[in-house]
Every structure is written in C-alpha cells, then in structure tokens.
C-alpha cells in the first residue's frame, strides 16, 4: 500500500488549506485525534486528491482551539464533535456545538442531547425507539410531523456506543484483528481487511500474492450476502412478502457457502496482518456460485417487473449529488447519487488492481431509493464474477508472512466495504502495541447524510427510505 503523505499545518493555515483542497476538486475523508510524541494530542485531517493512490494527512496540534472546517466540509462536523467528546479538543465556530456521542443516560448524568424546538398548532412529536418493532438494532428517532408529513427528523445513534476504538489500546496487533471483526458483524471481513492493511502499511510489508487474491474472494462474498439481504429487506418494506422471502433465502445460501469456505458464516478468523490465518476451502465454490446465478437473475428480473415495487422506490428519499458530496455519502449510497467513487479502483488494494479480476464500478444518477437498489444489484453480479476470476487467478504459495507492528509506527488501511469507505488508522506505542486506532466506518458517514432525505418527506416512505440506505448502527456507534 502506498504510504500516507504527511504534512504539518498549524491552526492558522487550516482554513486556507481546506478551501484549496475544495477548489482543486479534492475530497476530505475524515478527521481524528492521535497521540503525538510528547504525550499531547494532534488532529489528523485525511484527504484524497484526484490521481493520488494514497491519501494525504494534515497534522495539526490540538493544544489550542482549532477553527471548525464544517462550513467548507460539512461532513467534518461529526468528526469534530466526536473529537470534542472523546479528547476535549476545542473547535471555534462549530455550527453544532453539542455532544454527538450520546452522554450516558443513567441516573447520574443529564440528557445533553439537543433537539430543535419546533412548535405549532398541529405539530406533533413522535419519539420512536430505542426498542422498536422487529429484530433491529437500537436507536432512537425523533420525528416532528403534521399528519403524514415529516417536518424534521433527528436520529440518536450512539446508545450502543461501546468504546470500541479505546478497546484496541494496549492490545497487540494480532488481537486487534479479532476486535476489528467485531465492530460491525455484517462487515467483519472488510473491517479485518482494512485493519490488517493498516498494520501491514505500518510494518512496511506486503502480503503474498495468494493472500491478495483470496482476500478478494472473502471481501466479495461479504458484499454478496449483504446485498442479497438488502434486496430482501427492501422488498419487505414495500410489502412484497414473497420478494422478501426469496431475497433473504438467497442471502442465507451465501452465508452457508461462507461457512463451508472459511468456517464462519461471517467470514471471521480468516484475515489477519500479514495475510490469511487459514487457506480457504474453495473446492466447489465456483460451482456453488454458478448455481446461484440463475436464481439471483430470476429474482432480480421479477423485482424489475413489479410495478408496485418500482412505484414505491422511484423518487423516494431523494439525495441530490451536491448534498451527497458535502455531507460525505459513501458506497452504493454515494454512487447512486452520481459520485463516481470506489476505493477498489481509486485506491486499489488486495488484488483489485489486476484488470483480469474485472472490477466494474456501478453508478446511477437518480439519487432515489430505486437508484440505491440498482447500484447494489449491479454489484451483486460483479461480485460473483470477481470471485470466480479470483479463484482462477489465485497462485499457489504462502498465505502469510510474519508481520509485527514496529514501535511508534503508524499506518492506514482501507477497504470498500459493502456499505462504502472503511478506513483504519493505527498508531503504535513505544512497545509495539496499539496506542490509538481510529475507525472511519461507512455507516458513520451515511447516517450523517440520511436525515437530509427524510426532512420534508412523508411517514409512508420512511421505512423504505431507511432500508434503501442499508445502514448499520453498530458501525456508526462503534
């Protein structure tokens, strides 16, 4: 992986640098706090520029107030607030100066959440959750509504914040991979992959070719079962009951394939720093996927032919390209709003740079629920192709090389998870253990975007719109 280009800046230069990045067509990715050599805290702004294989990191001391960049890069607002909540960094001119990570709501602490005051004769407030109907993750939503119309919507997403980033501190780099697999269960493989690549970047090693290709197989199996489940769930919200059953059944078939190939339905205990922990049992995999192609094609053709389904998705939850870019939409959500971006191509890793793998980036311009489903449909087909190509291209040889985290080293690794850009930044302490791990998850990005598609819409569309984003709460809350 290409190293990160580091650049020291002071607080006074920050606004100009952010504006320059914007003017030149670059993209701000994330912000996090990292320990510096003297025991203080620095801010790391991570950006990407066109044509750059790696990323750029601005290092800014955080010992005094730093200007908020939210006016230029709105997506940074959540990262700034998170840095304030966790490490007490002060940002001047922050447009949303209240806690993001939910303060504990036990008996001792007050509820510090900020809900806007919206009042009017017919305005009603609906607090929904955190325990909601169905088997779903816990989150609380506040709707302000008049009849069917939603005026304003505020999600509270951090009730299940587990402090996962802090859990890595003091661990060795091997243990870190096991923790990474448990940040967001349905993204286990992508998390392990991004984490392992961060450690490998810090150690300055590259993994054997066999591991590079097999990592593609694992990552695409994850995309496959996630996207199939997504289609089933989306069909359920449009009350297409047979469509729901068929989609989740196809997802189950892939999970069973996962178990036969890796020993885990969630593709865990496979990817580790240095390569793979076990050789994939790939005999029969190509045939099993061939057997799925037909049913998947017929399923999708049936969805396409269902007018009631299309009617419920078309124009629902519109996300304009500009909002998607400004607020940091990622993955299929961003691609469905015309953002042509995919880490597998733009910052290639594993074996995605091999043109014989046949990576195809899906895209759509409509920005509605239908476009978001369409992008995933295209990715399902491509995932099967890539797995079969990777199977044929995998060379013989070692699957793992020794990989230990050098003292005080740092590294960044990334993966295009089924939900979008996932980045791990790791910093080692003087003993070669983890001193800081930052996880930038796709759901953290897309939850920031989601409310913009809910304000000013209607209650009937809400469940469909939420399903069309394919969000997880564990990934967001960590």
């Amino acid at each position, binding site marked *: 992986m290409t190293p990160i280009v580091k650049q020291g800046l002071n607080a006074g230069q920050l606004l100009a640098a952010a504006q320059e990045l914007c003017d030149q067509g670059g993209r701000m990715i994330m912000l996090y706090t990292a320990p510096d050599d003297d025991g203080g805290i620095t801010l790391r702004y991570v950006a990407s520029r066109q044509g750059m294989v790696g990323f750029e990191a601005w290092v800014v001391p955080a010992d005094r107030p730093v200007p908020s960049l939210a006016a230029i890069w709105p997506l940074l607002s959540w990262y700034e607030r998170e840095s304030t909540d966790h490490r007490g960094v002060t940002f001047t001119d922050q447009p949303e100066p209240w806690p993001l990570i*939910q303060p*504990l*709501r*036990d008996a001792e602490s007050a509820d510090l959440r900020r809900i806007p005051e919206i009042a009017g004769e017919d305005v009603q407030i609906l607090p929904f959750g*955190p*325990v909601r*109907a*169905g*088997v*779903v*993750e*816990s989150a609380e939503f506040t709707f302000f509504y008049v009849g069917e119309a939603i005026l304003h919507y505020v999600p509270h997403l951090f*009730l*299940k*914040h*587990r402090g996962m980033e*802090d*859990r890595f501190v003091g661990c060795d780099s*091997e*243990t870190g991979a*096991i*923790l990474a*697999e*448990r*940040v*967001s*269960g*349905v993204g*286990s493989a992508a998390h392990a992959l991004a984490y392992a690549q961060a450690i490998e970047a810090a150690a300055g090693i590259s993994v054997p070719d066999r591991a590079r290709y097999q990592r593609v197989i694992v990552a695409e199996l994850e995309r496959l079962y996630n996207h199939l489940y997504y289609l*089933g769930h989306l069909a359920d919200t449009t009350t*297409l*009951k*047979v*469509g729901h*059953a*068929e989609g*989740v*059944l196809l*997802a*189950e078939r892939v*999970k*069973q394939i996962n*178990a*036969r*190939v890796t*020993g*885990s*339905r*969630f593709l*865990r*205990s496979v990817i580790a720093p240095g390569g793979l*922990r076990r050789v994939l*049992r790939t005999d029969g995999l190509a045939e099993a996927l061939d057997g799925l192609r037909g049913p998947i094609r017929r399923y999708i053709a*049936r969805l396409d*032919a*269902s007018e*009631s389904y299309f009617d419920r998705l078309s124009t629902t939850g519109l996300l304009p390209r500009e909002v998607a870019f400004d607020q940091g939409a990622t993955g299929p959500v961003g691609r469905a709003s015309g953002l042509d971006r995919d880490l597998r191509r733009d910052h290639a890793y594993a074996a995605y740079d091999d043109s014989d793998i046949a990576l195809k980036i899906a895209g759509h311009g409509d920005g509605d629920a239908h476009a978001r489903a369409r992008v995933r449909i295209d990715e399902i087909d491509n995932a099967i192709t890539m797995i079969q190509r990777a199977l044929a291209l995998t060379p013989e040889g070692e699957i793992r090389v020794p990989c230990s985290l050098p003292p005080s080293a740092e590294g960044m690794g990334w993966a295009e998870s089924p939900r979008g850009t996932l980045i791990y930044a790791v910093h080692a302490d003087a003993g070669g253990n983890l001193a800081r791990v930052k996880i930038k998850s796709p759901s953290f990005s897309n939850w920031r975007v989601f409310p913009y598609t809910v304000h000013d819409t209607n209650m009937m569309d809400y469940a469909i719109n939420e399903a069309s984003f394919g969000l*997880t*709460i*564990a990934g967001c809350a960590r």
Partner: protein
Amino acid sequence: MALWTLIGLVEGSASTKWPLGDGPDGQEGVLGMPRLDAAKCEAGCTSCINACPTGAIGLNAAEATLDYGRCIVCQRCVETCPTGALSESHDWAFGTRNRDALRTARTMPATAESAVSRRGFRRSLHIRHVDAGSCNGCESELQALNNPFYNLHRLGIFFTPSPRFADLLLVTGPITKAMLEPLRRTWEAMPEPRWVMAYGTCAVSGGIAPGGPCLTGLDEVLPVDLYLPGCPPNPAAIIEALLMFLDRRPAQVEQGHFDGR
C-alpha cells in the same frame, strides 16, 4: 403481485426438516468453540491464556480451565496451542439454563433454576428482542431465523413487537449503560411469568467489550434463565437453545464439556 404468489407456490417449501425430522441444520463447516483436553497440557505453558482476547482460559492448579461463556470462537487458542490440548471443533449448541455449566472449573455454586413452570409454553413462545450494544452479528442471525430455510414459526416460536405479549426477553450485546434503562423498562412491561435469555457471548459475559461504557453481561442487571454463548450463535444454535429451554431437546453442555450429538 399474483405472479409472486404463483412463483412462491411453484418453488415450494425451502425449509429444512431439521430439527423435527431428517434434514440439514445448515451449519456445515461452521467452526465452533474449542475442545480442551487438559491432560495434554505441558507444565508451565500459558500460550493459550496469553492468546485469548477475552480471558476465557485460565489456570487451576497448573491445569487449563475453560469458560465457554467467555469464548468468542476466534480460534486463536487452537492455532497457538503447541500440544494439541485445544482442538478445533464444530460444537456450537451451547444453550444452557445454568451459567456454571459453561465452565470446566466450578467457581460458583450452581444457580437456582427458575421455579415457574414452562409447561404451557412448550408449543407457543413469544420473544421480544432488545439490542443492548451488539455488533449486529447477533441481529443478523436472529433475522435469519425468519428466512424460509429455518422458518422459526413452524416450531411455534415467534418474535413479537410488543413486550406486553412477550414471554421471553432475548438480549444481545454487552449492555451499554445508555441502553440499561430502555432494557429495564422493556422487562418491566412484560407480563409474568417471564424469562430472560442472554444471547451471544457479549450478553453472557461482556465478550470483547467489558468495561468503559459497557457492563459485563446481562446477569449483572436482570435474572437470566437461558444462556447461549457464541459469536454470534448461529440460527441452529438458537433453535437448539430455545427447544432445550422448552424441554423439547436435551441440553448439550455440562460442567464445561460438550456432548455433541
């Protein structure tokens, strides 16, 4: 819509006959929790203890001990063990009414079993699920229970939206402090008799995330009647555990040893 119904009928049932009849449980290849043969341990060896990220392995008078209630199935101890004392397995049906049954070494007196009869619930159990800080792996497997392959309904077991209609509270995650109050209120809203299930290693013991914003498992705050460790427990393991709880299947783990089938 009519087309969907027709195709659904033509394709027929996709459900497995297991566990009522002969059929696949769908877990071919799934790696389970390690088996421990402490007689093979080398004196002074602590490699598995150092490797385990959740402290599931300990030492008792120079012999390794195992607490399956803490195991997250990461396979690291198996990979590290130099003598083969710990070996890979496909054991995953660890549902038990007794937390102590998951430990090879008894550290606590056996917990008293809930005296309320479950007799009337054997063929009709309603479950309310609460996520109290999971990684969503557990939710993914719980959602899978209602896919056509497992089709949980056929066993008389249902998930219900309201705690008012629930007999069993099924909890995932290590219990974050912020979820404590909603969890308690859900439990209080349930009619009696009511039971509580800790689903997944996080809910059983805190798993990978004890401390900080999290507690160390469900039995810190609610009386737990059914434990099922696993990371996450697969759908067949849930079915085994629920049927065991309803006295329709035998328990498979006793004193930290798994019988298998």
